[in-house]
């Protein structure tokens, strides 16, 4: 028989356990004791026990950080994980991947079942979701009137939309009778003429939200004749009420904001209406005025005055043209005349005679040639400055 070391024994047992399929994927039910969370590493160490025995368990920080609750001593839980050997101590222990509080598992399974059932019926159908009115006259709030939720709703509506009326119906939001109370509240708000209803509460633990996870409340919301906004202050999981509602808000304040528009937006709307009305009216006016101007100018073009003035204009144009033409004509003629006069003057016999020439007339006829006269003829001499009679004594 070979001799082995302690480490070899522990490692051998460890490998045996690792090879066991049952031990590698196991769910163990028990009660938590000696729970310690190592402050530095974040690993959790505890024991799981029942009436007869116990097993050491460890949950590493990475798995522990995924837990949605803090395990405590005395809690009945179901731990899922694997069983291996801690070789240093030669001890086997449960390595936990997840811890589920006992009962919570059953409740969540039942809730999932209910969700499926209602979904199949169409209670959550997107097609059934009704649009919220843009400017509700009367907003219903079904919640505890002693809670913070109703105060928040009043504050938001007072600031944003004081035009509305708030009909706040007191309802039990947790404990026995809460689902009935909530459903009655919805019916009352509906009967009071609300055009949108907020149903909810301000926060609370998973158990406190129980009423909003009931079939009764889901049907109450679904059956409501006006849109319902759910406001179950709980972000992590959607409640059945959230799924059935026409609109889901994370908090009652947010629900109030969804329910009503902001008055400042409405003021802007009014301003833009004013501007649009002014622009449209001005446009209509300017169109009418353009039409009038066009017609009026056509009309006045046809008036007797304008026709007369047109004729006058033509006439005066003709007159001007005529005047100009006449001026040009006379100018041309007068310069021609001047030229002729100058020429005439240069040809004047008087000028020639002034230079010492004289004219000889026989009777009335000018003597141009010696053949025109005979010896002994009497002729008249004309000088520049007078005349004389003479007798031809010789001719050749």
């Amino acid at each position, binding site marked *: 028989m070979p001799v082995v070391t302690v480490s070899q024994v522990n490692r051998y047992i460890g490998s045996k356990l690792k090879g066991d399929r049952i031990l590698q994927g196991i769910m163990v039910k028990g009660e938590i004791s000696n729970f310690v969370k190592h402050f530095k590493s974040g690993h959790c160490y505890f024991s799981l026990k029942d009436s007869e025995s116990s097993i050491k368990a460890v949950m590493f920080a990475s798995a522990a950080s995924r837990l949605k609750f803090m395990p405590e001593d005395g809690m009945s839980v179901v731990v899922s994980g694997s069983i291996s050997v801690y070789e240093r101590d030669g001890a086997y222990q449960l390595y936990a991947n997840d811890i589920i509080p006992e009962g919570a598992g059953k409740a969540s399974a039942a809730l999932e079942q209910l969700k499926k059932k209602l979904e199949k019926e169409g209670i959550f159908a997107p097609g059934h979701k009704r649009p919220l009115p843009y400017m509700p*006259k009367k907003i219903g709030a079904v919640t505890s*009137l002693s809670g913070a939720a109703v105060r928040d709703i009043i504050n938001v509506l007072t600031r944003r939309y004081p*035009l509305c*009326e708030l009909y706040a119906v007191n309802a039990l939001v947790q404990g026995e009778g809460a689902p009935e109370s909530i459903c009655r509240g919805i019916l009352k708000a509906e009967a009071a003429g609300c055009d949108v209803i907020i149903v909810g509460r301000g926060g609370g633990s998973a158990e406190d939200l129980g009423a909003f996870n009931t079939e009764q409340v889901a049907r109450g919301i679904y059956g409501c004749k006006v849109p319902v906004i759910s406001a179950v202050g709980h972000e992590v999981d959607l409640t059945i009420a959230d799924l059935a509602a026409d609109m889901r808000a994370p908090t009652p304040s947010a629900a109030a904001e969804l329910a009503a528009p902001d008055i400042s937006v409405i003021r802007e709307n009014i301003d833009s209406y004013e501007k*649009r009305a002014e622009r449209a009216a001005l*446009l209509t006016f300017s169109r009418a005025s353009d039409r009038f101007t066009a017609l009026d100018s056509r009309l006045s073009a046809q008036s007797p005055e304008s026709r007369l003035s047109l004729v006058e204009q033509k006439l005066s144009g003709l007159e001007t043209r005529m005047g100009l033409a006449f001026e040009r004509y006379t100018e041309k003629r007068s310069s021609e005349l001047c030229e002729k006069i100058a020429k005439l003057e240069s040809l004047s016999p008087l000028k020639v005679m002034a230079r010492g020439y004289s004219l000889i007339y026989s009777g009335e006829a000018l003597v141009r040639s010696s053949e025109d006269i005979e010896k002994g003829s009497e002729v008249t001499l004309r000088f520049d400055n007078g005349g004389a009679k003479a007798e031809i004594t010789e001719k050749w």
Partner: protein
Amino acid sequence: METFEENMKKLGTIVAELEKGDIPLEKAVDLYGEGVKLSAVCKKQLDEAKIKITEDNGNE
């Protein structure tokens, strides 16, 4: 007196009518006057609005 919502709706209708553009001038003038009056009324209603709260405690 009409509610704010009714007045807003009417104002919207008037603006849409004006924006059609093919209406007689007299009608445009009338509509514009009516619109200005309505918008003043709406603003006044907003200024004077005070939330009305009814608490129904008979539902425990």
